């Protein structure tokens, strides 16, 4: 049984790989457009951080956090979100696929539907956002007054990977939700784009109820807030026990399991209603 699951996962990843390769080649059919768009995407995502720079041109600290600290939050949130967006960014199109009937085509192929949707319209230009986030993150790492060692470095890495997983789950859940509500793709933006915007700022800025909500209901706080507070030597505004700061991978895993179940239920619902 376990072998079957592993084999299926390996097959899914391979299939993902070759569908993505098709999309990359497809994009390269318009090489000039692609080059322009990658440059433009890189240059313009910079504007996103500029708003925060402007804020700090007026103040020394925001919610008690300095610019390098906020940059650290921004960088981790952006890279985690960017990874999820790059690898799984197409789930918001499910409603459209259901409406125009192309969902059926995916169900007629011997590759898991989840994989096909994930690989759909894979766009390398999304690397623009990731590299911009990575640059802000790198800059903050040099500015921060943190005692860097193997442990803390590993923590940043684990944080980004689990953060990417959590955001990825949000994308897939948002997509699965559209099996029931085809026109509701925008709800997902509140959690994806809204989520990454939220996590770019320190938790101290927000009302406690909002922080509680993104800790216990939609566990976005585990993308970067919780582990980052530990790294930056800050207190958690909710006063949760210390081990919570290390819980991100476990939370990510739990998210994946729940997402898998919801996705299956969504697909089953689609197959019974066909609309």
């Amino acid at each position: 049984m376990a072998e079957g699951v592993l084999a299926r996962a390996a097959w899914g990843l391979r299939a993902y790989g070759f569908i993505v390769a098709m999309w990359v080649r497809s994009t390269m059919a318009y090489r000039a457009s692609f080059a322009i768009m990658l440059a433009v995407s890189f240059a313009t995502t910079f504007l996103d951080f500029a708003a925060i720079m402007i804020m700090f041109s007026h103040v020394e600290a925001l919610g008690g956090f300095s610019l390098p600290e906020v940059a650290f939050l921004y960088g981790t949130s952006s890279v985690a979100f960017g990874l999820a967006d790059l690898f799984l960014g197409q789930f918001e199109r499910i409603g459209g696929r259901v409406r125009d009937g192309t969902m059926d085509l995916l169900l007629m192929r011997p590759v898991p539907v989840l994989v096909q949707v994930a690989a759909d319209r894979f766009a390398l230009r999304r690397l623009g956002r990731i590299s911009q986030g990575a640059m802000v993150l790198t800059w903050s790492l040099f500015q921060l007054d943190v005692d860097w060692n193997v442990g803390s470095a590993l923590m940043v890495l684990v944080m980004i990977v689990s953060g990417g997983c959590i955001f990825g789950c949000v994308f897939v859940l948002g997509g699965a939700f559209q099996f029931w509500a085809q026109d509701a793709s925008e709800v997902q933006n509140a959690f994806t784009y809204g989520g990454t915007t939220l996590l770019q700022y320190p938790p101290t800025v927000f009302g406690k109820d909002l922080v509680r909500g993104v800790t216990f209901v939609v566990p976005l706080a585990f993308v970067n807030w919780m582990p980052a507070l530990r790294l930056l030597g800050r207190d958690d505004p909710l006063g949760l026990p210390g081990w919570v700061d290390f819980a991100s991978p476990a939370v990510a895993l739990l998210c994946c399991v729940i997402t898998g179940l919801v996705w299956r239920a969504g697909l089953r619902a689609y197959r019974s209603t066909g609309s």
Partner: protein
Amino acid sequence: MRLPRLYFAVAGSGFRRYATYRMATAAGVFTNTIFGFILAYTFIALWNERPQLGGYDQSQALTFVWIGQALLASAALMGGGFQDEFQERIRTGDVAIDLYRPIDLQMWWLASDLGRAAFHLVGRGVVPLVVGAFAFELALPGSLLVWALFLLSVFLGVVVSFALRYLFALCGFWLLDASGLGALSMLLSLFFSGMMLPLNVFPGALGEIVRWLPWAATLQVPADVLLGVRQGGAGIAGAFGFQSVWALVLLGCGRLLQKVATRRVVVQGG
């Protein structure tokens, strides 16, 4: 008088088309409201440190946030509206068919987008503003005249926003894969309209420049009309003048670019 009637009908159908997507409207209202809360908290933190930043007091800053959320869909500050559809018609070449119709392509899309904007103003604008007004102390005017001037300013802002998106969409004639153009137009609009941060907070020369760019006409100017920052005969005339000049200039550019693009279509044979 037949043509204006036609464009009114086009606008009406634009309105009705978006009105049928109830679920999408509800989803959008939800998302606007969430974003409103996120931004409102960051603005509170900022204005706590620096009261009177950019000439706004805290309640004006918060009002700005919720006006932004209310206008986000209507003024298409994140792009969209007719843009995707128009771009798709350019990509597939269907636009060649449109060019043979006895109507003006730009005016036709403008009318349709104005219809959409009117629906989005009501369907997606009112609820976030009301929620914001309940959750925070906002500086909303009591005078009906100010609200009327605000609506007029929103109308001009939508025209400017349309003209900008039309220019971006036309670039699709030259760039075959125009999906990235949408992203570019969205980011420029979010940043330079004031959606991320009011333009009067932008420092120094940058601040001077952004306040004169066309995107300022889409959110910053209508917001300042409602907040009473631009008031009195001269203030209002300045606001409307700024918006109208940009609207005319950009619509003119759109016509020129359309002419060049049309020649291209004819040469390519569709």
